[in-house]
Every structure is written in C-alpha cells, then in structure tokens.
C-alpha cells in the first residue's frame, strides 16, 4: 500500500494558520500571563501575513491536492487571500485596548460569573483573555479550508472547524455578558442543528453517488438513474446547512440576535469572513458537484433569494439597534449574492468573488466604527443615540456614512460596482425577475442606510449622547484601510474585477 501524497507547498497557507493556532494554545499553557497578549497578537499577525504571502505566491495555481480532498484553484485562492486580509484587519480590532479602560472587548475570563466578585477582581487587575486569538486562528483556518474543500467530508470538517470557535467567541463580550452568552447559545444550538442537516444531506448525496468527491458526484449525475429522490433531497438538505451560514431567509433568524449579542469585533470578523467562506463553499458545491442538475436547484434558490432580499431589506427598516440593522443588511446582501449564484457561470462566480470582497471590507469597517461610539454602558448601539453624531464627530460619522453608502450601492463606492456586477451576471444568467426584486429591495435598503446618514448629519444631537472614543492606532489603521479600500474599489475597481474574472475558474 503506497502512502498518499500531500502537496505541502499548495497547502502551506492552511498549514501555517493551523500550526499557529496550535502554537497559540501552547502559548496559553506556557507563556507567563503578562506577556501572553503581546505574544499572541504578534503570533497571529505573523501567521496571517505569512499565510497571505504564501497565498499570493500561489496565485495562478490550479491543483487538486491531498488526494482529491482539497482543491487549490482560483476561487479558493481568491477567497483565502480575501479572508486573510480581512482577518488581519480583524486582529487590529481584537487587539484594541484603548476603548475599554485597560481592556479589550472581551471578558477578562469567560469562566467568571457576570457580576461576581471574581469578575470585578479580574477587571481591576486588567486581566485579558488571550484565548480569543488561537480560537480566531482556528476559525480562519476553517474558513480558508471551506471554499477549498473538494469532498463532502472535508467540507463538513471545515464547516465545523470554522463554526466551533465562533460559537465560543460570541459568548465572550466584556459588557452585557448575559446577552453575549445568549447569543453564543443561540448560535450554537441553531448552528449545530444546521450542520446536522447539512451532514444528513451529504449522507444522501453520498448514498446517491457512492463517492464523496465533488468530481465523482458530478459524473454520477449522468450515470446514476433512478435515485433522483435521494440526490435531490440531499442537495436540498446540504443547501440548508450552507444557507444557514450565509444567513439566508428562512435560516436567518440567528443573525440579528447573534450579531447584536456578540462582542462587536467578533461580529465584524464573523459577518465579513464567515459569509465569504460559506459563499465560496456554496459556489463550489453547487457549480462543481451539482452543476449538472442546476435546473433542479435553481427554482429553490430563486425563492430563497427573493425571500432573503425582501425580508432583509424590509425588516431592517424598523430596526432601532445599529448592530441589528447591520445584521439585517447583511441578510439582504446575502440575497444579492444569491441572485448571481443562481446564474451559475463564470461571470457569476467572478461577480460573487468581487462582491464578497467589497462587502467584507465595508462590513468590517462599519462594525469597527460601531465600537467607537460609546457611552457609560459601553457601546451605544441604539440608533437614537447616533443622532447628530456628524456634528460632534464628523470624521467618524463621515466614515460610517461611507460604509453605509457602499452598502447602499451608491456610485464611487465599492458597493456600486459590486451590485452592478452581480445584477449583470444574474441578468446574463436569465434571472431578470430576480434582479428586478433585487433592485427594488436595494431601493428599500438604500432608504434605511440614508436614514442613518440623515440621522447622523441632520438631526439635533441626542442629549447626554454617546462620546466617540479615540481609538488606538490599531483600530484607526483598520478603519482607515477599510474606508480607503471601499473608496478605491469604487474608483478603480478594474484590477480587482480582472483578478476576480481570472480567478473564477473552478478546477474539477
């Protein structure tokens, strides 16, 4: 029996991040407490940057690696690179220690009881929880593996590797810990539920095809006759698992609650990167494995896309909490991406890749701005407190407005080009009615984005309103990068569009 080969060079970005995560756990075990925070941040940054460098060096690679279990191709590398860039920026928000006096956004010890003496002592000692960094690295590694997975098993493993750390991270907020715990519980229970559904679906698909590999499933679509029931219910159940991760209606119910309850840096990371990874996996699964039966899954996705866009945009209208509003906005955005996904061709893939990159950056930035607006109880997330922010802090409000305009898809911002390309791809793919719904939904969406802008700039400031905290250089750099990228991709989207176009070829 010959030993299987592993393409270490192509898998190096993944191995780097996984390795760093494991080392991070060891650091927790052996490095003295005072040095831990610095060491962890440095390690995480180094690992992510090193991984990013490797991804860039791999550009253009098209390899089926690890005996067919993993594919390193254009979409995988594009998404891995984007996820790494977003994670590096997220690290900056995680490491922010100037907003909370002497602490970061996370509870000093997740095990201490909220309101207990133990917690007070820990806060006074300025204890920091550093496990968040290895957890994040694990999640990043899972996210990088997810869109590269080429068989059902690896896809499931990656799904769990990215989800499990996120469940924990959601429960670690320093303030409003009960809400944070609740978010973690909800996310966990529903997430576990959805992965069980996903797994059950993959069992059916395996039962249909007799193989876990996407390529062989794709072949089986034409050879296996008479077991379509097995296949179709399997595809449906797997779709549910992925649609849950991207927050599509009717699997979206967790999104607002979890986005609101989780510590905001985690929300930012999760909203941006999970969606990228999950859409990447979804595109690969549906195009590579199930491309042959697209006429079967397209109607279902049509319905889901319409419901997602409508519910996301409409419910966001009446939200009063900024984090919940952004959560519904992210639901609507998932719907916009789904319109292109329905088209199922190379243009659509390119459009999705571009959209995800621009959306991820703007989302990170928007949530980071949310961390800056604070009152005595921590972040002031109620919309009424944001009234008149533009008068007191024009730069912060202006930056937030920029991100909102990008979400709304106003020209000159990255969101405009992104929306244009997904809608164009959907029209090419014959989904014009979907695009009409999409345009209507984005009109509704633009309304609530502009409402926030009007609130910030044209309303009288709220009495005893929140102050805008001055962040450390970490957050400042992170937000500036996000804003610059949002503007730049709105002005000169050409290079990234070309890159996405080149990267949009799947290796089977």
């Amino acid at each position: 029996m010959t030993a299987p080969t592993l393409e270490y060079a192509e898998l190096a970005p993944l191995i780097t991040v996984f390795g760093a995560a494991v080392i991070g756990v060891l650091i927790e075990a052996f490095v003295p407490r005072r040095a831990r925070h610095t060491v962890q941040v440095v390690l995480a940054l180094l690992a992510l940057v090193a991984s990013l460098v490797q991804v860039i060096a791999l550009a253009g690679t098209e390899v089926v690696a690890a005996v067919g279990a993993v594919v390193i191709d254009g979409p995988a590398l594009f998404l891995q690179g984007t996820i790494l860039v977003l994670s590096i920026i997220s690290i900056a928000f995680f490491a922010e220690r100037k907003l909370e006096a002497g602490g970061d956004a996370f509870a000093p010890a997740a095990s201490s009881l909220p309101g207990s003496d133990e917690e007070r002592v820990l806060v006074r000692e300025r204890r920091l929880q550093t496990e968040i960094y290895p957890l994040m690295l694990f999640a990043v590694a899972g996210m990088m593996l997810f869109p590269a997975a080429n068989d059902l098993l690896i896809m499931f493993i990656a799904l769990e590797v990215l989800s499990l750390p996120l469940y924990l991270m959601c429960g670690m907020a320093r303030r409003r810990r009960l809400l944070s715990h609740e978010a973690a519980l909800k996310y966990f229970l529903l997430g576990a539920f959805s992965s069980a559904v996903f797994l059950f679906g993959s069992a059916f698909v395996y039962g249909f095809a007799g193989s876990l590999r996407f390529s062989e499933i794709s072949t089986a679509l034409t050879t296996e006759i008479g077991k379509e029931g097995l296949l179709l219910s399997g595809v449906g159940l797997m779709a549910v698992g992925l649609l849950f991760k991207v927050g599509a209606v009717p699997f979206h119910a967790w999104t607002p609650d979890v986005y609101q309850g989780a510590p905001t840096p985690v929300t930012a990371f999760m909203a941006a990167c999970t969606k990228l990874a999950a859409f990447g996996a979804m595109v690969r699964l549906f195009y590579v494995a199930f491309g042959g039966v697209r006429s079967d899954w397209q109607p279902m996705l049509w319905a889901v896309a319409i419901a997602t866009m409508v519910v996301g945009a409409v419910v966001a209208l009446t939200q009063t909490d900024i984090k919940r509003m952004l959560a519904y906005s992210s639901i609507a955005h998932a719907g916009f991406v789904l319109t292109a996904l329905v088209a199922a061709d190379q243009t659509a893939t390119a459009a999705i890749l571009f959209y995800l990159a621009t959306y991820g950056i703007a989302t990170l930035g928007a949530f980071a701005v949310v961390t800056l607006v604070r009152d005595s109880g921590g972040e002031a997330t109620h919309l009424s407190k944001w009234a008149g922010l533009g008068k007191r802090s024009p730069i912060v409000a202006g930056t937030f407005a920029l991100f909102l305009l990008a979400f709304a898809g106003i020209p000159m911002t990255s969101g405009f080009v992104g929306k244009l390309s997904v809608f164009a791809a959907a029209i090419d793919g014959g989904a014009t009615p979907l695009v009409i719904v999409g345009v209507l939904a984005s009109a509704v969406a633009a309304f609530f984005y502009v409402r926030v802008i009007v609130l910030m700039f044209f309303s009288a400031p709220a009495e005893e309103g929140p102050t805008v905290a001055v962040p450390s250089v970490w957050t400042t750099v992170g937000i500036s990068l996000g804003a610059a990228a949002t503007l730049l991709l709105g002005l000169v989207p050409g290079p990234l569009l070309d890159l996405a176009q080149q990267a949009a070829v799947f290796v089977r």
Partner: protein
Amino acid sequence: MSPTPYLVLSVILFTIGGAGVLLRRNALVAFMSVELMLNAANLAFVAFARMHGNLDGQIVAFFVMVVAAAEVVVGLAIIVTIFRTRRSASVDDASLLKL
C-alpha cells in the same frame, strides 16, 4: 443489500432529533437531540457505505464522531456558563435578544 430499512431508521432518528430540538426546553437535552441527528446521519453513511461497497461512508462516520465530540465540548462549555449565571438551562429563558 438493501439500505432501505436502515435509511428509514435513520430518517426516523433524524426526525426524533429534530423534534427534540423543537420541543425540549432544556438546552442540554436540545443539544443531545442534535447529537442524535448527527448519529442518524452516521447510520445513513454506514448503510450507504455498505451498499456501495466502499469505505468512504465509514470514514465519514469516524470523523463525525470526532466532530460531535468536539461539539459536545463547546456546547457544554456554553451551556454550563449560562447555567452558572442564570441558574437555569432553559432555552426559553434565554430570550433577551429579540425583535
């Protein structure tokens, strides 16, 4: 070998698990129901592996057991924390985040 009986059993288990998540208030029990769903999937995998005569399905079953175990650890950690804070593991008590 016809996998149908196993498949039927697996679907029944899966449904029981799903119903458990919907109906049981205790987070721990709800979570156990999810584990039941995973094991239903395992059963299906193994049955199909037998039907197709390859080992892929069984390997998946191994991995699923591991993943399920990891999920247990994470789940227990979250549920225990909630229980210690609220003195209750009812999922209905955890409903501060809404609307």
